[in-house]
């Protein structure tokens, strides 16, 4: 058996292993891998995510067991120090010696630190490994302790530098990016697009200093500032150097492999170095006199090396390597492909710039107007994938090439045609080198019908994920050619959309989950279909979550919102935000008794946090005695109807908003829906109740109420749209009854009213027709259904505390009276909070 030694367990080294073991012939070889870092290979491209969760495991490319499971010997924390070409062996830092038949160098690169006076000072970092990030985080904490408004600078305004800028901003430091060139991302962007990007970033609070050469790092021991010469300095508490990379080629140098003048181990198109038994791949390899600082070319090199070692000589590195990139920098799209910019004699450029929106697009077209040479997009790169494909595949341009970036005028739709027009050889997923042909074939011949299944089979979309929209399109279009429509199916257990299931349950009078899955589904269900079906039962029969409790989402199952540490919160209903002093005192007393953290919520009521599972029925028993009922803060159901004080007290009030809010909150309470529902009532157009960011809202105006629907705060805020103007209360309620009921019957699981209306063909006009003009002839039915729901309300907490079998569910252990000793609280401003997550 022959031995292959891989030096370096980074992204490309790992990819080599993955591709190697996937091949049948590989069992003739033994793979031994050395990695200098203390852990197995991880996803460096998404390194910045480590700041969000500090979860190194989440970045792992494969769990450590994967190597052994695949017969690979992985030795981490061990640097290879020497190569002895004569004896075909290597030595490691701990003086062990190993023999090889083939050696693969995948040692990557290190950040380049320019020789500036003072760079060795404390507080100066580079940005490459998890250890670097841990160091930065610890240092930033120290800085913030003494200086809450501390500043951090990034040396280098390239791609990585800007990412580092975002990272230090997230750490709570004021970010300053210092770039030597006169513009940001000098390699990828032209001056104008760079400008647009700079403006956008500055608006986000990132300070940009371009055209600055750093002479010296200031400070006594640790960094206090940067000196740019001529009395120009910047005070900073921390510095991240991101000034480019240098290949880690020292092994090549000491064993006399052919090297590039400025470093890098020279390889041919088979990834062989000047010693045919030694290969080099990834960022250490100098191919075409270039070091490619991106993963995709590295992965391709790994593929070539695997094939060469397995004696498949035909697979070679391409002559030209595509350096196109698209990324989301701090939430801003930035993309460049082909030749991003060039002098006029080489081609013509079409440029669209909109500084107010932070958008810049440029495409470069050949003089005859026939081919796309490259381009840049900042602020909006939605069309990147298709433009990139047009460029790669030399596809003909439309007559009006400008439509590619400014959108088609008039009728006729998209200027691009569809992704299906691409040749089969077009690489759709560049991380995993999956072609359009492979994606379509996976659908047409292998019978995969979802993006998830295609991803599993082809690996497309599993790298950076940028190709997802295109893969989704291809899957959809391929299914169409098979005569199949893409169905909105709930999950693998039901071949129906939510709306279809709703009708099935109703028409066949199905009573519980088991009956439903046994008659029209398959398998045993999952965490997606169970709660969706639970909501359908609730909307049709108005049954409480207590009845089929194990198909409810956890919050509904225990009638309380689970918190960070597994305790729960308790939220009684305070309709319209109106509460008596007596009720306030009762709540205060109960919260104190059970040592609960209390807070006024954003929904005008009071939340009591930190109740243990077994305390919930005890607390609710007392609340119910005081006249409270459940607030359903846990349910996909009505939350609150916010109100302003209205004409009862307010000098501008046009009508009694509190009374109306209390009335509707009681009307709709307990009704389950595809997602939560929120309402608002304002006494005049000053809109103090924020009714227009609610699912339904009423605003009192001269002559009646204006009715608004489908507003949303939350992640994608959207103002509600006007459904009817100046109507009386009764009419207003009828319209909203029908609107809610229609939404309940037709929306997808977990779809709020705002996205539902956005998807509804015909939009608000169509909805007005259904709700006001009864265009579908279903108004009477909707009215009846809603009235039935209103009439059958029960407080599910009352039901729970009064029913011994339900009460029994509230115990942490079923075989012991002990409580969960894993729960720990710490104190917080005279109250308490859960202990931090580790």
């Amino acid at each position: 058996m022959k031995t292959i030694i891989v030096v370096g367990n980074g992204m490309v080294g790992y990819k080599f292993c993955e591709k190697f073991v996937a091949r049948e012939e590989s069992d003739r070889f033994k793979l031994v891998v050395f990695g200098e870092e203390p852990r197995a290979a991880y996803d460096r491209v998404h390194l910045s995510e480590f700041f969000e969760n500090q979860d190194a495991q989440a970045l792992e490319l494969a769990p450590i067991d994967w190597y052994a499971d695949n017969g690979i010997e992985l030795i981490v924390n061990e640097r290879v120090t020497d190569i002895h070409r004569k004896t075909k062996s290597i030595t490691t830092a701990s003086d062990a010696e190993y023999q090889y038949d083939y050696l693969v160098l995948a040692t990557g690169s290190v950040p380049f630190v320019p020789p500036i006076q003072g760079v060795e000072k404390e507080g100066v970092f580079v940005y490459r490994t998890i250890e670097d990030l841990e160091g930065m985080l610890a240092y930033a904490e120290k800085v913030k302790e003494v200086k809450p408004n501390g500043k951090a600078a990034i040396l280098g305004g390239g791609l990585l530098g800007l990412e580092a800028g975002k990272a230090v901003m997230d750490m709570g430091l004021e970010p300053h990016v210092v770039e030597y060139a006169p513009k940001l991302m000098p390699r990828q962007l032209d001056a104008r697009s760079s400008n647009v990007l700079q403006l956008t970033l500055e608006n986000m609070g990132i300070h940009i200093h371009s055209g600055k050469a750093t002479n010296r790092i200031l400070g006594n021991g640790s960094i206090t500032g940067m000196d740019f010469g001529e009395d120009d300095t910047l005070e900073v508490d921390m510095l991240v150097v991101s000034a480019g990379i240098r290949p880690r080629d020292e092994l090549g140098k000491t064993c006399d492999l052919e090297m590039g003048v400025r470093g890098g181990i020279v390889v041919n198109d088979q990834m062989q170095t000047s010693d045919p038994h030694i290969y080099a791949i990834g960022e250490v390899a100098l191919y075409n006199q270039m070091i490619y600082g991106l993963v995709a070319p590295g992965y391709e090199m790994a593929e070539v090396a695997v094939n060469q070692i397995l004696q498949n000589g035909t697979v070679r590195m391409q002559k030209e390597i595509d350096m196109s990139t698209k990324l989301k920098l701090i939430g801003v799209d930035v993309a460049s492909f082909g030749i991003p910019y060039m002098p006029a004699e080489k081609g013509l450029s079409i440029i669209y710039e909109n500084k107010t929106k932070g958008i810049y697009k440029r495409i470069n077209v050949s003089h005859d107007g026939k081919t796309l040479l490259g381009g840049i997009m900042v602020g909006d790169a939605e069309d990147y994938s298709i433009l990139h494909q047009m460029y790669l595949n030399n596809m003909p341009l439309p007559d009006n090439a400008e439509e590619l970036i400014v959108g088609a005028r008039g009728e006729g739709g998209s200027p691009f045609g569809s992704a299906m027009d691409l040749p089969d050889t077009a690489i759709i997923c560049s991380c995993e080198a999956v072609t359009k042909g492979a994606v379509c074939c996976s659908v047409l011949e292998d019978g995969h019908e979802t993006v998830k299944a295609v991803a599993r089979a082809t690996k497309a979309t599993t790298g950076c994920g940028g190709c997802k929209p295109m893969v989704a399109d291809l899957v959809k279009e391929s299914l169409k050619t098979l005569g199949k429509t893409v169905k909105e199916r709930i999950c693998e257990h039901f071949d129906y959309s939510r709306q279809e299931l709703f009708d099935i349950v109703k028409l066949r009078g199905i009573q519980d989950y088991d009956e439903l899955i046994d008659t029209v589904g398959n398998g045993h269900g999952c965490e997606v279909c169970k709660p969706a079906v639970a909501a359908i039962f609730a909307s049709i029969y108005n049954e409480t979550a207590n009845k089929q409790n194990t198909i409810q989402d956890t919050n509904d199952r225990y009638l309380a919102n689970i918190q960070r540490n597994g305790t729960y919160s308790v939220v009684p209903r305070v309709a319209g935000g109106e509460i008596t002093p007596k009720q306030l005192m009762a709540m205060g007393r109960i919260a104190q008794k059970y040592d609960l953290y209390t807070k006024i919520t954003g929904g005008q009521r009071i939340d009591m946090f930190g109740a243990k599972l077994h305390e919930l029925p005890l607390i609710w028993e007392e609340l119910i005695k005081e006249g409270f009922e459940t607030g359903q803060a846990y349910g996909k159901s009505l939350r609150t109807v916010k109100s302003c004080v209205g004409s009862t007290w307010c000098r501008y009030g046009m009508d009694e908003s509190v009374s109306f809010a209390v009335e509707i909150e009681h009307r709709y309470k307990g009704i389950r829906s595809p997602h939560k529902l929120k309402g608002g009532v304002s006494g005049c157009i000053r809109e103090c109740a924020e009714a227009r960011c609610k699912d339904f809202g009423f605003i009192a105006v001269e002559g009646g109420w204006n009715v608004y629907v489908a507003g949303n705060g939350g992640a994608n805020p959207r103002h509600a749209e006007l459904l009817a103007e100046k109507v009386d209360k009764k009419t207003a309620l009828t319209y909203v009854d029908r609107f809610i009921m229609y939404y309940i019957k037709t929306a997808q699981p977990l779809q709020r009213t705002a996205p539902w209306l956005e998807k509804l063909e015909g939009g608000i006009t169509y909805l007005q027709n259904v709700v006001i003009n009864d265009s579908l002839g279903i108004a009477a039915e909707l009215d009846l259904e809603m009235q039935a729901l209103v009439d059958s309300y029960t407080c599910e907490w009352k039901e729970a505390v009064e029913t011994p079998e339900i009460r029994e569910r509230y115990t942490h252990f079923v075989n012991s009276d002990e409580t969960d000793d894993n729960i720990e609280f710490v104190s917080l401003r005279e109250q308490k909070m859960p202990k931090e997550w580790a």
Partner: protein
Amino acid sequence: MTELKLNTYETVALNQVKIWFKAAPASKFPKDGGACIKYKDKQIAVFNFSREGTWYACQNLCPHKMEMVLSRGMIGEERLEAKVACPLHKNTFSLKTGNHLNGDLGAIATYPVKVENDFVYVGFSE
């Protein structure tokens, strides 16, 4: 600390069982749902997957944020592999192998379960 907690739990295969711990009457475990039992210093989630007619047990500790919550998770199946979804962030784990199905947190520990005379027993090696 986190390491310590995780190390408390190690998968026990059927042939490693030395003690069948008599946990609780079967009726304490809801149909197609779970409940938590205590054995020495361990918290074990036990599931009554009655649609399958199978019982499963695993650590109650979710490896994502180290909270004792898995017994309160929803169970179900993905291509017929029984799984539990953590109630906190819906990470799902196979109840057969313990493997993390929608990500790459490590596997959770699983334990054999048997039911005799309407009593649930969980198998431990110590």
